């Protein structure tokens, strides 16, 4: 039973969070995790009306590093250039990472470029 939907926390009142999963309708959700760490605007996963985790976008780089490692190992095993293989993964993830970085730092140029 892992079916969960991403949603944005819109307000927290009386120990209950009101979340919007993307259709503009606010729904109440029980805060299953530490309430002190939750803020309005957070991206969370909601499972059967329970907030089970906060999504941490800064970890996307860890995912990319894991794929890069695999791509490099793969290339080395067939005698290709590992750095070129790593570059392919980096290029695929570049826009994603840049976007996350820009959004986190509040800069807007990247969004303008992609809009």
């Amino acid at each position, binding site marked *: *039973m*892992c*079916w*969960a939907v*991403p949603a*944005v*926390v*819109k307000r927290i009142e009386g*120990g*209950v969070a009101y979340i*919007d999963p*993307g259709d*503009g309708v606010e*729904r*109440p*959700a*029980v805060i*299953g*995790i*530490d309430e002190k760490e939750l803020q*309005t*605007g957070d*991206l969370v*996963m909601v*499972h*059967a*009306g*329970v907030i*089970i*985790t*906060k*999504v*941490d*976008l800064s*970890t*996307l780089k*860890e*995912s990319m590093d*894991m*794929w890069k490692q*695999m*791509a490099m*190992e*793969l290339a080395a*095993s067939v005698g290709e250039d590992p750095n070129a*293989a790593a570059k392919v*993964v980096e290029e*695929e*993830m570049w826009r*994603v990472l840049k*976007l*996350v970085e820009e*959004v986190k730092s*509040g*800069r*807007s140029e990247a*969004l*303008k470029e*992609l*809009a």
Partner: protein
Amino acid sequence: MFTVKSLLKRYRPAGMASQCLSLPDSFPDPPPSVDCWNCTIMKKEMTALEFAFRRKTKITATLVNYIRKYSEELVQGDPHYIYRIMDFCGTHEWTIVHFGLRNVLEMAGVKNVELVAGPGCPVCVTPSYYLEAAMKLAFEGVVVYTYGDVFKLPAIRRVNGARSLAEAKALGADVRLAHTFLHAVIDAKKHNKPSIFFGIGFETVAPGYSEAILKGLVPPNLRLMNLVKLTPPAMFYALETSRGNPRDYPVSGVIAPGHVSTIIGGKAWVPVAEHFGIPVVVAGFEPNDVLTAVAEILRQLKNGEHKVLIEYVRAVKWEGDLKAQSSISTVFETVDSAWRGIGYIPKSGLALRDGFKQYDAFEHFGIPDLTPERWQYDLPPGCRCAEVTIGKAKPTDCPLFMKACTRDRPIGPCMVSVEGTCAIWARFGGGGLATEIAKEVGLA
């Protein structure tokens, strides 16, 4: 000509930008609204996230090649051995079947890896006894709240002619669908009639029940029929069973449930990895997540390792959520629990502690709880849901699958929920069906 941008610009209320605190002053068009969902920043974050794990085809190709490389190396070690990887969670099975990952691996020439569905669907494993008890209460005038996928779940014995809560409702009982426990709480406060919540689930829903109780949100007329089950003991059981069958290869690796692990943490799977000596990867639910998990499991198998690794780093921490764990253990205690068609698995369920018995539907309505002596095999004749649940059989091995048992008229519990293995295969066609069709029409 109107574009979305020009329309937004036209109807932009004056001063709106200044209402959003997260917004930089120099923000470009289209203008953001104060509504967080429609906020451009938030939308971009969601799109970025989805793209990273679903549509990056070069990364997917790298992962498939990586899997093929290790699969070939493993073939050299033992040409006939089949490495069975269990995707424990129903949602992982959904990803695998919906995105055709079995077919992707088959087309890539990976012959010695088999993805096996596990027991990760709480609707499938809730004993019929509790369903019958809930139907009986419904006919006695108690309001029964339930999740949507329990609504059509068939019981083994009819109650007043009804085989499911849906049929009970059709016969006049007051059965109400609730998306969440909180919706039932809000609704029950309005009518003040005696009510129960049919509370199935795994560790993911448990903090929802415990927090609602601890925060005093639950009205006195609403009681919880708590049926929460725990996943690690079920995984032990499924893996143990897979070893006990001499005709089958044992499970060589596990893709552990991502969202259950947000609560219990990656650490909860260490005993599994150590006891069975197999790799366990906690994975997310996008296709690249699952392929990464398969690739990592094969890499560990080739190198003779058996570690727990979290692939789903964006949501899961090693220690899990300590607040949720403490909330669950305050309200619930661990007990032996019955799994439908399987029987009792030790320490695999949660029950309300003595201090919280005022919320207990069993206590209040005098329903005797199931015991190992009273538990009876509760699947219909011919139905192989129990074997499908623990990965011993595929849905296509069942004589009823898509003949007598369909999504419209389910006979076994695995055909009901969106996470039931049979329901997923019925909807998207599992087991290499797409490859067979492709071959027939000359595409493969």
